């Protein structure tokens, strides 16, 4: 039995018993295993940062293959959701590469009384954490860490995006984050 140098794909050499079908099967299986490092479209139940509870739904999916992880996460807020204090973050299915301090992905957020916001996910290097950055307020476009309330827990009026009269995390709202990152 011969094998290729890099990936060890098996092929029948002269010393092998003549079994063409088995040799074909071995090669096909080895190619498949090398191509699919893990099963595709595994599901993922993401966790919210420790300060929040009471979701209507949390959904996630991912595919980790060949050094890259594709993922998507949605968190839907219900009537009993509490937004907690300070920066909000979600857990990723697989830790990100430590080569990069941060990686970039897209995020969006909906506050049903106000509207939609476009932000970004901050995939933190060497961890399985994704922090969420959102516009600082309705008029300021730079991004800050998304938060329902500051350390003092005052809401509304201390969150990001800043909404003087509305809560950031509110019944019927949601946050989606997803993309592709190196693992």
């Amino acid at each position, binding site marked *: 039995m*011969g*094998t*290729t*140098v*890099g*990936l060890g*794909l*098996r*092929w*029948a*050499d*002269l010393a092998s018993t*003549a079994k*063409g079908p088995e*040799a074909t099967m071995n*090669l096909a299986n*080895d*190619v498949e295993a*090398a*191509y699919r490092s893990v099963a595709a479209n595994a599901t993922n139940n993401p966790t919210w940062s420790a300060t929040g509870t009471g979701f209507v739904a949390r959904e996630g999916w991912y595919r980790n293959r*060949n*050094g*890259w992880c594709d993922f998507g996460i949605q968190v839907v807020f219900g009537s009993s959701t509490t937004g907690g204090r300070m920066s909000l973050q979600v857990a990723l299915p697989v830790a990100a*590469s430590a*080569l*990069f*301090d*941060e*990686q*970039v*992905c*897209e995020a969006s957020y909906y506050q049903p009384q106000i509207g939609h916001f*476009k*932000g*970004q996910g*901050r995939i933190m290097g060497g961890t399985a954490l994704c922090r969420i*950055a959102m516009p*600082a307020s309705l*008029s*300021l*476009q*730079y*991004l*800050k860490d998304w938060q329902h309330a500051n350390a003092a827990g005052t809401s509304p009026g201390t969150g990001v995006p800043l909404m003087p009269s509305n809560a950031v995390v509110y019944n019927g709202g949601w946050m989606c984050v997803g*993309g*592709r*990152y*190196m693992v």
Partner: protein
Amino acid sequence: MGTTPLFGWRYEDLPEDPDGQEMFKDLAEDVEATLLSTAVQSYTPVIASTGTPAYANTGTGAAEVGRYAVRNGWCDVVGFIRFGSTVGGGKGGLTVTLPLAPRTGISEQWIPARLYTPAYQGGVWWDGQLQAVPGLGVLTVPRFHLSETDIRTGQLQSADTGAAPAGSGIPALTGQYTIAGGGYLAFNGRYRVNP
């Protein structure tokens, strides 16, 4: 000798003498070469300024890291550039390199990017994009909002070429250069490449 149409994997066809051992060896090695060619590879993303003085990333913390992989005509790329403690952002628009030129015939492609300005408003991020066009080869134009209140986008620059550069960058930071030590530019994305 036959070959598959896309990757050129060799297989025996009828005019050849039967040689099962060689047939399997050729096919296995060709498949392996294709799979390994899609492995993650490293590159160094480079920033340059269109004006003078030139951009120069120096000092403590300066770093440029990039990785990419190509498969079936798509390039996945990740880049992270941290500005060192004595970075000079240069004047004029800045460009950032990709590992491979974008596909000819697609007028524009966009890669999500993020800029961090550590000394502005306590440290804030800016949502932007790298604009890839075929005529620029591996160079891209990073585009960000003109300011915190102007939603239009322009080419990233630390300062313009005028006489009073601080605060003249894109995004405009009142009284500050846009590129500052401790800040960074990060990008992740996928784009079409040739062929």
